[in-house]
């Protein structure tokens, strides 16, 4: 129950920060700061996969409604929500670590490297799919590649800042408790 409220608050906060802070920063056409999808990366390990997809769709759709362009972010969010469990399975080192902690973090994934590979890979996939859908009619490959690269860089920077500022308490869940 407590964790449900936590995720609802997180949903609202990520959405508000994305719409009212980051979307109002106009750095350059190439550099669009995105951080909202971190919500999906932080969803719990043991959540039902279909539910994850549905939550990701709703999350992306909410952002789309604010931007009056339905579909783009919903598609990207659903894609990373679908791919996420495969990355978790590959990157978690020892058997059962995903049962010991609630959600992906530096601690639960056993170190900086696996966690940042997880975040980096999903960020690139999210941005690539999003900008590919957006750039469908334009067809300029270089524009698409550069935009993905810049946006990924700034997203990763934002994620690192977020991780440093907001330390998530990770409880170790044991079977004996």
């Amino acid at each position, binding site marked *: 129950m407590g964790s449900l409220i936590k995720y609802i608050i997180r949903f609202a906060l990520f959405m508000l920060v994305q719409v009212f802070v980051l979307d109002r920063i106009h750095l350059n056409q190439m550099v669009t700061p995105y951080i909202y999808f971190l919500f999906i990366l932080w969803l719990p390990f043991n959540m039902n996969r*279909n539910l994850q997809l549905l939550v990701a769709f709703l999350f992306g759709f909410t952002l789309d409604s604010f931007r009056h362009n339905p579909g783009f972010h919903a598609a990207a969010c659903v894609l990373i929500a679908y791919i996420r469990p495969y990355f978790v399975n590959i990157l978690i080192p020892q058997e059962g670590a995903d049962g010991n902690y609630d959600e992906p973090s530096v601690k639960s994934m056993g170190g900086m490297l696996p966690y940042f590979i997880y975040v980096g890979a999903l960020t690139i996939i999210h941005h690539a799919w999003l900008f590919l859908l957006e750039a469908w009619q334009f067809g300029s490959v270089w524009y698409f590649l550069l935009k993905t690269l810049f946006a990924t860089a700034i997203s990763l920077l934002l994620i690192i800042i977020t991780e440093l500022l907001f330390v998530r308490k990770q409880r170790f869940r044991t079977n004996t408790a």
Partner: protein
Amino acid sequence: MLPNSQPPQFQIPRVVRNIFLFIRRYFTFLFFLLLQGFSIYLIVHYNTYHNAVFSSATGQLTGKINEQYNKVEDYFYLKKTNDSLVKANERLYNKLKQDFQLPDTVSKQVVDTIKIDSIAQYRKYTYLQAPVIQNSVSSQANFIVLGRGRAQQLKEGMGLVDINNGVVGVITEVSNDYAVAMSLMHKNSQLDGKLLKSGETGTVTWDGVTPNILSISRIPKSVKVAAGDTIISSGNSTSTLPKGMILGVVTEVTPDKSTNNYQIKFKTAADFYNLQYVYAIDDSQQEAIKQLLEKAKQKDKQQ
């Protein structure tokens, strides 16, 4: 199949059972495909079908949230808004009748009115002010959300100008209390523009890359164009924009090698990075013109 596992009267055919097993086995993947497909369906069909239920329901909700935010944000722009209002006032004062001396027997052309006979004048255009509650410039499909809607006389197809008569966009969707306008910086935006000096008309579009820079096409090489020339709205687009609203100032003219036309780039007159208030322009004759056009088209079909 295990024959003894279930009673014989409920025996399901093998094919159906396999289909059910397949769906259960790959349900997550199928669900993923369904959601992706639905998203892409929304992307593809949104521009052509204006789904009234979707846009007005979500528009009403997000509009409310945006309005709250805008109430706070407005304070930061008070000084700038004030400055532009003073400028607009100055311009309007200069248009007052008492500032002009009318030489006798000279007819006067007024942009805002239509002359039916020499004495009576009817109002053709009405300016309706609307606050901008959300505006984007960084994507390839930029929209402007206005805090005024159908209940406050806004209609689809109305042209928008900023405080200094610089064109901003065209209203595409209206809900009860909010309206969404397609900004000039939208890859599907198409308006008729006109060179102020020579009167040549062309189509104004945006390339989706550089903000505040638009291009106008179909201007033949025979026309003299230079950087610094003004581009105005032509008044014959499908929107209600009157003739003479400023679109922008030419920055770059390059001859197109393959055709007989110039490629002209120009900087927009309106500053899209800082829009606080805009005017929607209502054309009271638009309905009449539309009906006439429909009539003409029907006659054309019959022949």
